[in-house]
Every structure is written in structure tokens, then in C-alpha cells.
């Protein structure tokens, strides 16, 4: 039921969004030299804009992860209570 109502899709979207931010964190730490060289090649405004773009993109991705995780949890609760009602009816 949870699968059919989009619960798995919502959970997958949430995990993928978090994974994208985790990848960003890993990349900027593991390749900090490359990232710094890229920023240094830009003007100070470009440097500010590039950093801000990454920050806002990460925030937006985490907001998506939030919404999808809540949806997945809500669907799971809905399905659990529907299953419990069905069991009670049978009983």
C-alpha cells in the first residue's frame, strides 16, 4: 500500500536530496584546493554569488528532503491505521 501510494518515491526523493547535499559537503572538503582555485579565478562578487548559490541550492534541496520525508511518514501512518482498521473489521 505504502509503495503504491508514493511512499517509497517520497522517501527516495528525500534520501537523494540529502545525498546531493552530502556530496557537496564531501566535494568542497576533499577538493578544497580545486574549489578555492575556482573561487579565486572569479571576481569578489562572483565569489560571493557562487558561494551563495551553493548555500541556497543546499537549503532548497534540504527543504525538498523535509517535505518528502514528511509525506513519506504521513503516508506510512495513514497506511498503518488503514491496515489496523481492516484487521479490526476482519476480527
Amino acid at each position, binding site marked *: 500500500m505504502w509503495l503504491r501510494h508514493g511512499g517509497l518515491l517520497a522517501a527516495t526523493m528525500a534520501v537523494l536530496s540529502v545525498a546531493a*547535499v552530502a556530496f557537496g559537503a564531501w566535494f568542497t*572538503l576533499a577538493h*578544497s584546493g580545486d574549489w578555492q582555485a575556482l*573561487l579565486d579565478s572569479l571576481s569578489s562578487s562572483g565569489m560571493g554569488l557562487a558561494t551563495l548559490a551553493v548555500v*541556497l541550492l*543546499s537549503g532548497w534541496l534540504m527543504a525538498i528532503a523535509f*517535505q518528502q520525508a514528511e509525506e513519506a511518514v504521513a503516508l506510512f501512518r495513514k497506511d498503518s491505521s488503514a491496515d489496523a482498521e481492516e484487521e479490526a473489521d476482519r476480527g
Partner: protein
Amino acid sequence: MVEVTTDVTLNLYLLAVLGFGVGLIAGFVGVTGGYLITPILIIMGMPAAMAVGTGLALVTANTLIAVIRHKKLGHLDLKMGLITAGGTMLGAEGGVRLLHILENYGQRLADVVILGTLLATLIFVGVAMLREVIASSRELANGSDDASAAEEGEINTAACNFLQGLSIFPHIRFTKSKLRISGWIVFALGAAVGILSGFLGVGGGFILCPSLIYLVGQSSLMAVGTNLVGSFVGVTFSCFRHAMFGNVELGIALTMLLGMSLGTFIGAQGTSYVRGLAVRYVLAASVTAACFGPAAKMVYFLTDAAVWNTISKVVTVGQILIPVIMIAVLLLMAYRHVRGSEVPEWAQRLMAPQSHSAAG
């Protein structure tokens, strides 16, 4: 471990865990958590300007998450939010310039002034909140009508009556907030928060939100959403300005964001089980506890005694642990209450009406 400067390395796992703790508090009490993040980064050894820039990046991302969430819930007064935002941007530019002027006089002076200003603001706000929460708690225990009105967010102070009565052009009607007040007053509030945002690297929600409730006369729910619009514009602009100076350590900000978002998610879910008073208790405790870390660090800066540096690190972890433990206890009590198990009388008073009915 990640190397920030040649002599400072930070433990990423510890930062992610601290981020989770801050997120839990921020999600529960509805603030962006900047007032906790910046001192943590400074106390962990990051240079003040970099701590402010990195903290702002984290707060910007977390505020965006909160704005999207509140827009969905319909708790946004966009007109008031944008006027506040105008003031915040102007103030933020002033704050960033002030910080760089100060840095020209020496890093140590900048550290002391930033910590000192943060400390003074936290003590002022913390004491004011504690007084209000204790008064509300007494009124709730006595079953006063004022307490239930305050619980619904209808707080009518002498200050907000006075400010709403000031006829300074333009006197604007904010239909969504159901009030009329001079645009300049809202703008000035935003500017004051903007200066703090640019100078201290805090979102300013812990000042703007109570100001909108107690000075402007907005309801608690609308104030949270409106304050977030103003804060978002302010912190985004401050973050951009700090990034221009290379003050943002992106890897650390994103690592902490992962922990913080998870904490915010759990904290925000928890608010549906408790009363507004419980949330204000945690906020007041969190702001008050946040004074001790910067105070210990300040003593270290002034005396150069290494023991105070160690104390400040221990206290910083403690200042996050106290509200986290409070939230955990409240959620445990709410869970027991919903399940129909026995809970102490003090906890029953702090549970949300729906959890009462669920228990019944």
C-alpha cells in the same frame, strides 16, 4: 578532521552532532539557530570573521527551509516581511562594514567586541524571556484569561499600543496581521536586526520575533513566519557579503547543515505535541544557557588563562545539551501522555490540547 587555518583543525563528526543539537532546538522553538552556531565555531577555534561567515551560510540555508515550510502553512505576512527585509539589508551592510573596520584594529579586539556584543544581547533577551515565561506560567497555573490569550498569541502590551498609536507617515494597514502601524517602525526594527546579523552572524530571529509580538502586536504564529522573511533576506545578503571576502568555509557549513536539518525536522515535528508555553520555556533556557560559553571565552580573551578556553568548550557543549535534554524530556512526556500513561502534573500543563484529547 578538517584544517581551517594552519593551526586550527576541527572534528567534522563533532560539528555534525552539534549541528543536530542546534537543529533540534531551532526546529522546536522556531528560530534559525545563528545565536548558537557562531559562538560554537569561535569557541572551536575558528577565526571570528570566518565563524560569522560560515555561521551565516548555515543560517541562510536553514532559514530558506523554514520560509518554504511557513509559506506552505500560510503563516507569512509578506508586506510586513518585505518592509522588515528592507531595513535588515541596510542594517546588514552596516554590520559587515563595522566588522571589517574593527578587524583593522586587530583580530583579538574584533573577537572580544563580537563576543561582548553577543553576550550583552543574549543576557538582555534571555532575562526578558525568562521573566515573561515565569509570569505566563503563573497566570496559566491560576487559570487567568490573559494566559490563555497569550497562549493563542494575542499579546497586547503598552509598548505595542503606543507604537501602533504613533502617526508617522506612512501608516500602513497590514491586513494579514490585522493591524495598522507606521512603516518606519517596522523598517527600524529590521535595520536593528540587520546590524546584529551582519556584525554577529546571527539570523536575528530571537530578537525580531519577540519584537514583532511585544512591540508591533503581531500574533505569535504570524510573527514567526514574518520574522523569517526579514531574517532570510538579511542573512542571505550578509552571507553574500562575507562570501565576497572569502569568510565562508563551505564544507563545514554543508556538513553542519546535514546534522542541523535532521535536528530541525525532529524538533519541528515535536512542537505539535506541546503547548506554546513549553516552547517558550525551551527558548528562554536556550538563550540564557547560550550566555555561558561566550562569557567563559571572554574571560579567556581577557586573562589569557588556558583553563578558561577549556571551560568555554565544555560549557558550549553544555549550552546545547540543556535545551536538548529539555526537549527530549518534553517529547517523552508528550508520548506518555498521548499513550494514556501517567505523567507528572507540571508536564500535563505543558502538553498540547490535541495530545490531551488523544489521551482522553
